[in-house]
């Protein structure tokens, strides 16, 4: 549970620091495009930032079908999972 919290905090920090989205608007349920104004250029920057932050690979399509901040957190957790299994 605490790991999940740490993960979501890091994802949310990227949204506020790298994309400059006001912190008070970013909640797990927030819709990226509709609530936070994330456009296609932001999505590329966000994906690059996520890849760097979590040392993961996100295909270009990975963030296309995601809708909310929670979706992103889930996608990052998935991308991390195989590496964790290998490591464990």
């Amino acid at each position, binding site marked *: 549970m605490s790991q999940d919290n740490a993960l979501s905090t890091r994802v949310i920090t990227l949204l506020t620091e790298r994309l*400059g*989205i006001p912190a008070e608007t970013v909640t797990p349920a927030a819709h990226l495009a509709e609530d936070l104004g994330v456009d296609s250029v932001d999505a590329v920057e966000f994906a690059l930032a996520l890849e760097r932050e979590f040392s993961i690979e996100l295909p270009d399509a990975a963030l296309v079908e995601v809708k909310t901040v929670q979706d992103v957190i889930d996608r990052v957790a998935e991308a991390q999972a195989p590496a964790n299994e290998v490591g464990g």
Partner: protein
Amino acid sequence: MRRVAVTGLGVVSPLGIGVPGFWTELTRGTSAVRRISRFDASPFPTQIAAEVRNFKPEDYLPRRDIVRTDTFIHFALIAALEALRDAKLDPSPGDPRIGVSIGTSMGGLPLIFTTYDGLQREGMRGVNPYAMPGFLPNMAASWVSIRFGARGPIASATTACAAGGQAIGDAFRYIQRGDADVMIAGGTDALVTPFVVASFGSLRALSTRNDDPAGASRPFDRERDGFVLGEGAAILVLEELDHARARGCHVHGELGGFAMTADGHHPTASTEDGPARAMAGALADAGVAPGCVGYINAHGTSTPHNDANETRAIKQVFGDHSYRLGVSSTKSMTGHLLGAAGAVEAAATVLAVEHGVLPPTINYQSPDPECDLDYVPNRSREAAIEVGMSNSFGFGGVNASLVFRRFDA
């Protein structure tokens, strides 16, 4: 002919952000030149500049805009914010009668370098997608149009150190022709970077008076040894006069004339003829006789060539009257803001005419026989003037002159 009023002024300068502080320091004769703090300048022959110190864009702009743009756009957005507030103009979103014209010499050159560093280091992963729309030279004008809902004409002069002057002149024409009622016009540059210091240094254009930063920019003085790099932005809100009257807003002055000429001669060495024709053309455009001009805010870079050449050009246009008017270079205090210089100095000229105070040329100590005009040495002075001129010349042989008239409601 439609007349054009100046109804708003906004300045981001090495002497301060906001017009009141800028004007106070300018008339006090304060130098903004210091040792460069932005990067380690010790490998370079020039280690001084006039930086916008303690600049915190987050005090003025949402972080959302800051992360997507380079500093020259931050400067332009803040200057526009100040100017529109001064004009008491809150553009309704999507106004097609409001346009933007903002010049810059090189746009977001620092961001180009950062992006290229990322590419070299990490390949595609190192390339920020915000980079391209963050460094294009026209993006200062575009961001201002986006943020303030200005959907009229849009322009971005890139005529080097004349860009700010030309951008204001272009805006003037859009209003005169009826293409717009209001233009948000000016210039911006943020180029205190190693590459720019090295490139101008290679041309031997910069002062190397590193042991005396405050005394380094000394236009028209015999001991001048080059210009001092500055940075910043200025925006003028230009408005068709009846439009301004209908709003009942304050009018700082009237933009009466503009001319732009080319030397057609040499990449860096200016002629006497090109600047003289720009000045004469702007006077003719304004319908003002040379004898009516009380003040010239000179290009006055503090390079040996420019200041002597500009002095000769002024004498060619103004004849005996050259010795009766005040000619000052505010670059002695602000440094040379490149593509923003013409805009900051246009603002200074408007304020000089409005308040009847001529800002000085500081560091004027040793007269140069080739520069024998009244350069308002070292101290500002009161002078009730009707007309002021602002000159901006640039590499490539480009010359812009603007004529501002006092406005009595």
